[in-house]
């Protein structure tokens, strides 16, 4: 078992869910495949999906919903 970290490709605000009333994209313990959406980053009023770039199990969110993030910041930790 290894681990992999998904990082942000852009600065902005991170969201766990597609809209405030929606369910989160993924929760801790969920398994994800490469290409699955695991979150959203808002930058300058545009929204960019954060895709898993590996297959594995979500072990930990490294940022909270609505946290400000910088480019390259660690967002989600996967067990691979």
């Amino acid at each position, binding site marked *: 078992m290894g681990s992999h970290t998904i990082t942000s490709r852009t*600065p*902005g*605000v991170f969201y766990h869910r597609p809209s405030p009333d929606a369910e989160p994209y993924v929760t801790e313990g969920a398994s994800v495949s490469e290409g699955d959406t695991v979150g959203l980053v808002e930058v*300058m009023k545009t929204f960019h999906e954060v895709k898993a770039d590996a297959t594995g199990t979500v072990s930990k969110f490294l940022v909270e919903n*609505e946290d400000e993030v910088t480019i390259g910041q660690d967002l989600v930790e996967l067990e691979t």
Partner: protein
Amino acid sequence: MTAARSGAELPHRGSLDSVLVANRGEIALRVVRACRELGIRSVAVYSDADAQAAHVRMADDAVHVGKSSASKSYLNEDAILEAARSAGVDAVHPGYGFLSERPSFAAAIEEAGLTFVGPPSSVIATMGDKASARALARRAGVPVVPGSDEVASVEDAVAAAEEVGYPVLVKASAGGGGRGIRPAASADELRTVVAEAQREAASAFGSDKVYLERALQGPKHVEVQVLADTHGGVVHCYERECSLQRRRQKILEEAPAPGLDPSVRESLCAAAVDLAREVGYVGAGTVEFLVEGGEFFFIEMNTRIQVEHPITEWVTGLDLVAEQLRVAGGAPLSVTQDEVVCRGASIEFRVNAEDPGQDFMPSPGEVTGLELPGGPGVRVDTALMAGDVVPPFYDSLVAKLAVWAPTREQALARGRRALAEYRVQGLPTTIGLHRRLLDHPAVVDGTYDITTLEAWLRRADVGHSE
């Protein structure tokens, strides 16, 4: 709140002593500058990300309103209202965007006994609702895009289409966001399309109700600037041509609208004044129309100062933000309609922190070098200085370059010259895109419409950004 004073004591600025500028970036700076010239104390608000921003540095005072994300600062009604109370201002200027068109915010300002620099909250509510704005336009005798009520059968649709005029769009009543729309160019085609549309609407939206609307082929977006005071004065300040849009975002605007028939211009401007009167408008507002052939149709009213207001200021010589502040202080407009004259031609180029080569991906970051254009007929509205950081949390507009010249041809030449002087280092912007756009034949001859920019972007290699 200070007691209202008579206009005779303070003829130039109404009764406002101090204004909270509830915005950021270039428009906050614009309002701060108008306040300074009128002798009004300006109080800026700022988020964590904007603690060092130009609008904060240049205002008389500043109040911190929250964390960087817009929802926790500039969009936080309670925080802005609390800032107004703690700063002891008379009035709140909302700028554009953020809270400027939220009826609840304007109402909260009114309830706090402060002056909202804009129309009454009830007017914002009326014009902010598509159906009520359309109904109001009809009452004012202002044309709207022709449409039918819901049609119950295919034959009803054919009868209604005779009134609406072909080509028509068949729209699902329960649809929205562009879904459930089908075109039909003739009665024969309509018979087929309505039946299909009803079936599709029933399965997609749970209702088979459809209605018709005239399909405009390539209209121009032309808008009229209006000003109204609390004494019954309403004037128009002529029009702006804003058809060059990408994803409904304007990128270049000009005044006057090239090629607009003088009689259409006259009717358009009169319609905007009629609409403003009908709704009881106060302050600066913009009435937007689609123009096709010799016809024009109301689409919406923006109940605030507009991003592209500088081009109207160039051609009329008016200071629209100063007019807003005077009107908010209870003073009459500084001009009558006869005194508003449109002279020369003006073009605005929106400089966005976006990379046209990467599908306009936002490009926040640090501005490492900056050279602004200058010289005759050049105006730059920006809050971005060398060494500043463009934060990722807000709109991508970082500057507006507006040029003026006696003729449109000279204004185009001046635009090319100013864009060539403009240098932003550290992040990609839309400056290079504007340079290339000024070579587009339809831009040069002024015949472009709302489809031109997106069609050009699909064709053109806009790869090298600047």
